[in-house]
């Protein structure tokens, strides 16, 4: 406890001159800086001006009227990124009225997670308290119920701070969310019997064909639009596919098994689109395929059971290391809401089972940023990048570590949440 008080005292910041509370300029001094893209630097200062990292150096002089944070004894890391969640789109999982996931229909590329992202969701504060400064929010839950989903919409990369979703959006159309067809004999709904293999195979073939046809339609639309055909009429669904066809927007393809991953890669080759493999449960022999094409992976939770009874007990734990050793760039997502804050622990578990620790940290920062196409803005402590930073008393992937302060685009954000408020309120009950 005494130790805590000392740290708390150290964290107390001083101000030079009067500055509005929501200033996005700050000088953080005497921190152990972990730039992620370079080696750790002791006793260093980081200057953030107008939301961006302006300077990093041992002795930066305070400019007039800029806020100074003395971070002696603390560590400065880039804010963590959870590359796949449903934060902002789902509040209470069991109450459909509070959930905006999995729209009806097979092809919904025009749907935008960003504009349904609830900026008042309690999950935003709860998630960022764990050191996470931005998340990708996907419009689909990933459910494969009866193969009823293909393209669920556009996943958005969101800052976990802002008054409106518009202010929070870092990259509103970060990825196109596609649940890749697979042969799935699982029941059509809870309690129903499994489906015969023949039916599942038929549905898989049908879905693949529909997917191919949809892309074909989108290409014709793209040509018609470019040709300014006289009878051309706008079609929102097909228009939303153009960034995908142009290779500007990656498709986040959910592919669990080796076969689906191979299928997804073949699909990408044929359609000449950029893809990210999402939430795989095994690597099989797909490592070289992915490496050769520079296709990255957003890993799902390490904390899950092996797929099959006879898989090694640690199969989900070692999966990240397997992809890494195959030369594939990895990052992490949790694909949910309540455990979005635990993405750091997922990466640490992967590190306990073979992923190098520095790679686990990179996976949560610079890798995510690069995979999501914002490597120039997020993911490391480098001059010119956004001031998304966390001050901690240790390794942010450890549950024992406390996240002491957070800055998003240079602005200090509160680490209070519904959870801390309950704590403070009820500790006082006589």
């Amino acid at each position, binding site marked *: *406890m005494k130790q805590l008080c000392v740290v708390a005292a150290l964290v107390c910041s001083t101000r030079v001159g009067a500055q509005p509370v929501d200033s996005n300029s700050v000088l953080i001094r005497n921190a152990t800086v972990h730039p992620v893209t370079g080696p750790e630097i002791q006793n260093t200062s980081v200057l953030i001006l107008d939301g961006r990292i302006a300077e990093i150096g041992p002795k930066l002089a305070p400019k007039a009227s800029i806020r100074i944070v003395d971070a002696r004894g603390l560590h400065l890391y880039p804010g963590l990124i959870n590359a796949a969640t449903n934060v902002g789109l789902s509040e209470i*999982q069991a109450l459909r009225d509070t959930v905006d996931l999995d729209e009806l229909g097979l092809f919904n590329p025009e749907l935008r997670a960003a504009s349904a992202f609830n900026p008042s969701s309690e999950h935003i504060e709860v998630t960022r308290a764990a050191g996470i400064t931005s998340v990708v929010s996907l419009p689909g839950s990933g459910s494969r119920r009866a193969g009823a989903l293909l393209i669920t919409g556009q996943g958005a990369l969101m800052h976990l701070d802002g008054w409106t979703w518009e202010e929070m959006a870092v990259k509103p159309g970060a990825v196109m969310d596609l649940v890749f067809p697979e042969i799935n004999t699982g029941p059509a709904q809870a309690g129903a019997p499994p489906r015969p293999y023949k039916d599942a195979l038929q549905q898989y073939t049908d879905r693949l064909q529909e997917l191919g046809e949809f892309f074909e339609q989108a290409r014709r639309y793209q040509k018609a639009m470019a040709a300014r055909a006289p009878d051309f009429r706008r079609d929102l669904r097909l228009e939303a596919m153009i960034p995908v066809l142009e290779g500007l927007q990656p498709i986040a393809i959910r592919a669990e098994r080796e076969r689906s991953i*191979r299928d997804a890669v073949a699909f990408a080759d044929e359609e000449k689109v950029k893809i990210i493999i999402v939430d795989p449960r095994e690597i099989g022999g797909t490592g070289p395929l992915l490496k050769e094409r520079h296709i990255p992976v957003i890993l799902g939770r390490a904390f899950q*059971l092996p797929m099959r009874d006879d898989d*090694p007990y640690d199969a989900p734990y070692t999966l990240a290391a397997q992809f890494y050793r195959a030369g594939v760039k990895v990052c992490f997502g949790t694909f949910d809401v309540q455990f979005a804050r635990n993405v750091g622990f997922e990466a640490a578990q992967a590190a306990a089972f073979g992923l190098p620790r520095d790679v686990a940290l990179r996976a949560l920062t610079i890798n995510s940023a690069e995979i999501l196409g914002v490597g120039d803005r997020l993911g490391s402590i480098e001059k010119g990048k956004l001031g998304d930073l966390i001050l901690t008393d240790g390794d942010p992937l450890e549950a024992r570590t406390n996240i002491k302060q957070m800055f998003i685009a240079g602005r200090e954000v509160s680490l209070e949440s519904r959870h801390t408020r309950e704590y403070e309120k009820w500790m006082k*009950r006589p």
Partner: protein
Amino acid sequence: MRRICVLALLLSAIVGNSAAEALLIRNATVLTVTKGTIPNGSVLVEDGKIAAVGENLSAPAGATIVDASGKYLMPGMIDCHSHTAIEGGVNEGTVSDSSMVNIEDVLDPMDINIYRALAGGLTVSNVLHGSANAIGGQTVVVKLRWGKTAQDMLFAGAKPGIKFALGENPKRQGYVPPSVLPPGRPAARRYPGTRMGVEDVIRESFMEAKNYREDWQAYRARVARGEHPLPPRKDLRLEPLVEVLEGKRYVHAHCYRSDEILMLLRVADEMGFKIRTLQHALEAYKVAREIAEHGASVSTFSDWWSYKIEAYDATPYNVAILTRKGVLVSVNSDSDELQRHLNLEAAKSMRYGGLSEAEALALVTINPAKQLAIDDKVGSIEAGKSADLALFDGHPLSNYSKALRVWIDGHEYFDRDKDLETRPDFERKKKALEDKDNGGPRLPTRR
């Protein structure tokens, strides 16, 4: 069939636990939980029990010696809320009071999740009936003796329990219109459909149990007087409730909201029995004082919340608030997955509320042992207790650590090196089986 063959292979491959006469684990950082930490400590095991704990212990002749330099030894972990190793469904959901059914009758010692849990350092589980009924089935405490029979898994001397459930789960079948019930569920609605009804079910059942007990008492009194009356009809539903009234069976009550927790404590007070553990109890922090006064304890999740409305007022600080207010707390899994890393669940209490390392470790060792009244046998590394031990490659409260070896009663039930060694051979055998199974042509690949 294929699955059974493969499982059998797996079993034969990894059940190599040897019954050493004596075992000395030395040079470990020993986290005793109750008696502090011994850097460079040794633990001597004889006849399945911890014979000595100290700094320089010498091995008796013929003892197996494990050099644990740089590693951490902790007591095997205890999960106060598990459904692992239950064959088939966990709920007898057709009645509001299913106290006649017993988990002991449906233990499946072949459940692979037993081995997976061992591999995370877990050695004891409180295996509970589900939460579909206000009063659920009878529960049982087991040791994860993988490879042994269901009978051999039972924790000798552990008091049996019974599951209660409050709130959304037990009332669910009371308010779902028959038209939207999923296939396979009973079409009729089942009382209760409200929290008020849940309270009523429990009170009614205990009124009956008390009457039943009186009938038997009267019968026995008459027999003692030399009369020859007909005995009352034996009631398998009320028998376990009488055991609860007599303190011979523990109540483990699934609950969420503070109102229902308080309700249950008051009903128990009225009927004259005790609630042993409040399970989940995500809002227990609001009634910590009342829980402590009743003498109940809490077994909760580290950080679950928001999955349903009764979990929306949850806070991961629950553990810390309860601990500071004098309530005995454990962190449980309720999950085949989560039980694989209870040490990491415990570590979260250090971030959420600043528990010390010792307090955090206690949440998954000595505290659940106390809740199940087996703390004289397990839950800490002390001479005289069972040699239920887990060896980690780093501090078990670090997210970068993993379990390497696990012993129950001095027998080794998990060894990561052995597990890794057997994998290539296992994969070969598995592939041979699969090739036989897939004798037909392979599926065409796409395009």
